[in-house]
Each structure stands twice: as C-alpha cells, then as structure tokens.
C-alpha cells in the first residue's frame, strides 16, 4: 500500500480502537447526566446533575432508593490498601530472594505465579468451602483479604523481579564496603533505587484488589465490597445513579494515576532538577 495512504488509514484505525476502548465509559458518562424522569438509556430527556445529587443523598426523597455504596466503598478501599501493603512487601521480599539462585527456585517461582493463573471462581469457591469446613466465618477482611493477597502478590512479585533484574548489585557492595550494615544498605541504597518499581507494584495491587469480583463474591460473607454491591443493585433494576457513581470512581482512578505519575516524575527527575537549579547560580 502507498505510504501516503497508510498514514490516514492507521490513524483511523487508532481512532476506532480508542473509541472501542473508551466508548463504554463515554456512554456511561453521558447517561449519568440524565434527568430524574429519564431512564438508563438514550435519549437524554433533559441534562441535569440530579443523579449525582441523588447519589450523595442531596436529592429530595424519590421512589428510587439511594445506592448502598457508602460503606462498601470504604470496605473496598481499606481492603485494597491492606492488600497493597502486604502484597508489595511480600513481593519485594520474595523478588529479593530470587536475586540469588537457590535450590527449588524454579518450582517456587511457578507456585507464586499460580495465584494469578488459577481462575478466581475456582479459588473463591475453594476457600469458601474450606472456610465452611473449618467453621471459619467469611468476611471481606479475613477470607477475602487472604485471597486478594494470593491474587495480587504474583503481580507485585513480577514487577519487583523485573526491577531487580536491572539492578546493579555493585552499588550495594559499595555500601557494604563503606562499613554500612546490610539492613541499612537496604534502607539507604536499595530501597530508594527500587522505589519507582515499588510504586508500580503498589498501583497494580491496589487496582486489582479494588475491583476484584469473582474471588470476593464467594468469600466476602455478609458485608459486601464495592464491586459486589454495584452488581447487587444492577441485578435488580438500573437507574442512572449507577452511571453517576461509575463516573465518580473513574475520576478517582484517574486521581490515583495522576498521583502515581507525579510521584514517579518527582522521583526520577530529582537529581536532574537539583543540578539544573545549581547551574543557574
């Protein structure tokens, strides 16, 4: 094909692809501005922010009950936070262990990876049965939490493994030869250098845990997490307040990403900016 033609064709393809990716979110965002009388579909009766007010409990009482998301949102955030802390700590430690070849490294590697390979429905069901068998109560902060760690730990581990792969061991040796203990070397040299990787692993773990569904479904017990409670309202009847909520959570995700980006940028550009600042004087 002629190169002149190829360019616009590729551009069109890319545009379509982006539309395919973001189309659902865009539709959802548009529909969230439906008026009180309109349903969860086109056409838009009248533009309004009614469903946002309804979601936040600011609207006058209506026959549509308020979305029961408040508590489940808090639960999901707490669970995601707990999962992130544990998974990233474990992931960093085990990736550190894999820097030296040890006996059984191969099988252990695959055992860790298994956690993200096995279908969530299966492990979810398995843990639920096991909990029943052992007579342990199921709850989002116990059984679900364990499964979330099993699920996100391999991701954190793989991210940290890649980071350590490119890590120059001689800087740690330099620190040791300066008389600095291994623990302090980790704190003062290794950790600052791998921090961008830790940040990425945290983002991964948090996002995966925050919208985890299948594993949580079987193990959360009576108190629901956010994805479960959204699904619960969905299965009864849909009003645009779900869309409004979707838009708000998407914005929240973007905020998280922005914080991640800023931290990353600040971290990687630190030495540069210091130098540039000094050059001017």
């Amino acid at each position, binding site marked *: 094909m002629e190169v002149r033609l190829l360019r616009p064709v590729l551009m069109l393809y890319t545009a379509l692809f982006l539309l395919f990716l973001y189309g659902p979110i865009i539709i959802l965002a548009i529909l969230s501005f439906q008026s009180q009388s309109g349903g969860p579909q086109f056409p838009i009766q009248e533009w309004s922010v009614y469903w946002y007010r309804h979601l936040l409990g600011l609207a006058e009482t209506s026959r549509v009950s308020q979305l029961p998301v408040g508590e489940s949102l808090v639960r999901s955030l707490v669970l995601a936070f707990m999962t992130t802390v544990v998974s990233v700590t474990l992931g960093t430690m085990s990736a550190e262990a894999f820097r030296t070849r040890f006996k059984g490294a191969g099988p252990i590697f695959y055992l860790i990876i298994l956690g993200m390979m096995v279908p969530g429905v299966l492990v979810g069901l398995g843990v639920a049965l096991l909990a029943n068998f052992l007579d342990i109560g199921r709850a989002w902060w116990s059984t679900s939490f364990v499964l979330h760690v099993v699920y996100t730990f391999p991701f954190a581990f793989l991210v940290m493994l890649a980071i350590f792969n490119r890590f120059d061991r001689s800087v740690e*040796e330099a620190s040791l*030869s300066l*008389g600095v203990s291994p623990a*302090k*070397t980790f704190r003062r040299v290794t950790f600052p250098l791998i921090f961008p990787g830790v940040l990425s692993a945290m983002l991964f773990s948090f996002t995966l845990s925050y919208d985890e569904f299948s594993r949580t479904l079987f193990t959360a017990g009576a108190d629901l997490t956010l994805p479960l409670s959204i699904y619960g309202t969905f299965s009864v009847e849909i009003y645009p307040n779900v869309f409004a909520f979707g838009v708000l959570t998407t914005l929240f995700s973007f905020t998280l990403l922005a914080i991640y980006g800023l931290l990353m940028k600040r971290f990687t550009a630190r*030495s540069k900016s210091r130098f540039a600042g*000094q050059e001017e004087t």
Partner: protein
Amino acid sequence: MLELKGVTRLYGDVVALDGLDLSVPDDTYLSLLGASGSGKTTLLRLIAGFEEPDRGEVLLNGERLDGKPTHLRDIGFVFQNFALFSHLSVAENVAFGLRYREVGRLENEAAIRERTQHALQLVGLEDFGHRGVGEISGGQRQRVALARTLVTEPRIVLLDEPLGALDANLRARMCDELKSIRERLKVSFLHVTGSETEALTMGDTVAVLAEGKIAQVDDSRSLFTQPKNPASARHLNAWNLLPGVVKGGVLHASVGKLPIGEQVADNTSVQLAVRFDDIGVCAPSDVPAGHDYFEATYVTGEFNGPTALSFFRTPDGELIQVVDHLSDPRLPHLEEGKSYALFFSPDAAVLFKGAA
C-alpha cells in the same frame, strides 16, 4: 599488611584461584596484572568479603578476615563502574559511609560536612558537592568513587580496574593522581588491571596473576627486564618466547638451533625469551659478530606513534614481534614476504626451564 595464604576459589569445576599466596605490605602501591578471566576480580572480591574463599586464609595485620561480614572488614573498594549512588548528590555520596557505617559513625553533621569537603578537596572536586552524580563526567565520577572510599579511612584500598571506564587521556592523568593521593594518605592500594602499561606505571610493586596463582612479584623495572617465568613474560606483552628442547648444550627450537648460555641437561624442555626491543633485523648474510640469530619472514608492520611494531613469522608459523623506536630506528627497510635474520645479543636472552 594484608596476607593471602593458599587462597582457593572454585566456580563449579572451574578453578579461579588455586592456592594463591600474596602479601601486600603497608604503605605500598601494588598493582596486580592479570589477563581477563584470570581471577583478578575474584581475588579482590574475596578480600572485600563479597565472596568467600573455598580454602585458605585472608589476614590483615594478622587478623583473620575471611568469614567476617564485608561491612566489618574496613576495606575500601573502588569499582570499575564506580557504583555511585545515583539517588544522592556528590557530597551525599562521599558522606554516605561516615553517616551510616556500623562502626565509627559520625553523628555530628558539621564534622561530616568537614570530612566530606576535605575528601572532595583531596580529589579536586570541592565545588561539585551539590551536583547529582548523573551530571558529572566519567573522570569526575571516578574521583567521587575514590573520595567516597577514602573518606572512611579504610585499612587498605582495593581498586578493580579503576581506569577501565575512562578514555586514554584521562587515564594517564588519573594514574598520576591516584599515585600522589595514595602517597599523601600512606594507605596501601591494591590495583587490579589487565593492562601491562598501567600495571608497570602505577605499581611500586607489580604482581602477575596467571592460572590462579601469583607468577611473580617484583618492582616494575625488574619484572619488565627479568621475568622469572614464561607466564610473567607473556603478561608483559614485550617478550617473544621460543619453545624447544636442549640437546648437547644447544637449544633445538622451532626456528632452528640456538646456543644457550647455561648448562642444561639434555632433553630438557625450555623456552628462550627475547624482548621485542632487543631484536635486530638484517639480511641473513650480514649478522653482526657475537650475536645469535634465527630466520623469519616479514609479515607486516604496525605504526603506533613513538614506536613501530614489526611482525615476523618463523618457518613453523610462530609469530615474532620486534619493536623499533621512531627517534632511534634500528631496522632496515623491510619487504613483506622476504626472509630476514633476527639477531640478538646472547645476554639479552632469558632461558626458562620447563615445557611451554
């Protein structure tokens, strides 16, 4: 004094160091010359404690070092790639050891600043403390690495090919500086290198590492002019080795028969070594009186600036090198493919007993 006694290090079936003995006296610049893969870096890593020997002892002033964790050994290490802490500034790099070390840590910020500044002065970087380590040149990074090590006042400093990452000009300058810095501090430097010129320039004493053992330890001049074994001679990259067997007091070498200066029993395998710059070249009929010679074919020449290297091939394919000095040429005009007599004074030849 640092002593290594019978140090052996194996990597699977590969013997990196084989019962090596070496001592580094106090207040000395010792350079260790070894080909790549000769185990010279391994040797430094064993002394620093990054690895442990499989057998043997490492002693510093009579105290056992092997088995002791690296951070308690009090030994400085300068890496080939400098291994600077990229997340810290130059001054923070230098202050790192003072601030965080296990033994003899400085708590007083003013004292740390003073010592750091002093170390930066020592390497001529007093105005660079605030810079990031990514924003200074290779030579400056080398100095930061050196200052960072020296500021903690180690008992001995190990340098692993410290000039390897620098360009030639800078290397020559750093050579002088390393030497003068060491002389001011009176601490021993053990400098590992694969370059014979670097080893000879830097070292008060030069040790040659070959096949996992120390082949020879000597001052530069003695080592260069009187290598004690073929391994040392080969590492100096300045000696032609002619292997052969002695019969009836004459060396039967691949290039023909050559007289030898000393009594050697028949059927002894020997190698005759003649330095590149001790060989003259002339037509086979014009060999000056009192010189031994053999014949070889001129292959090609290599012009290196102040010196020129000529390559000859003996009838059995052995390559012989002859050095000529531009300011004081000894060689006649040479034609490629033509046979010449390579002659040398019997005094210039060194005889090594034992097979090649």
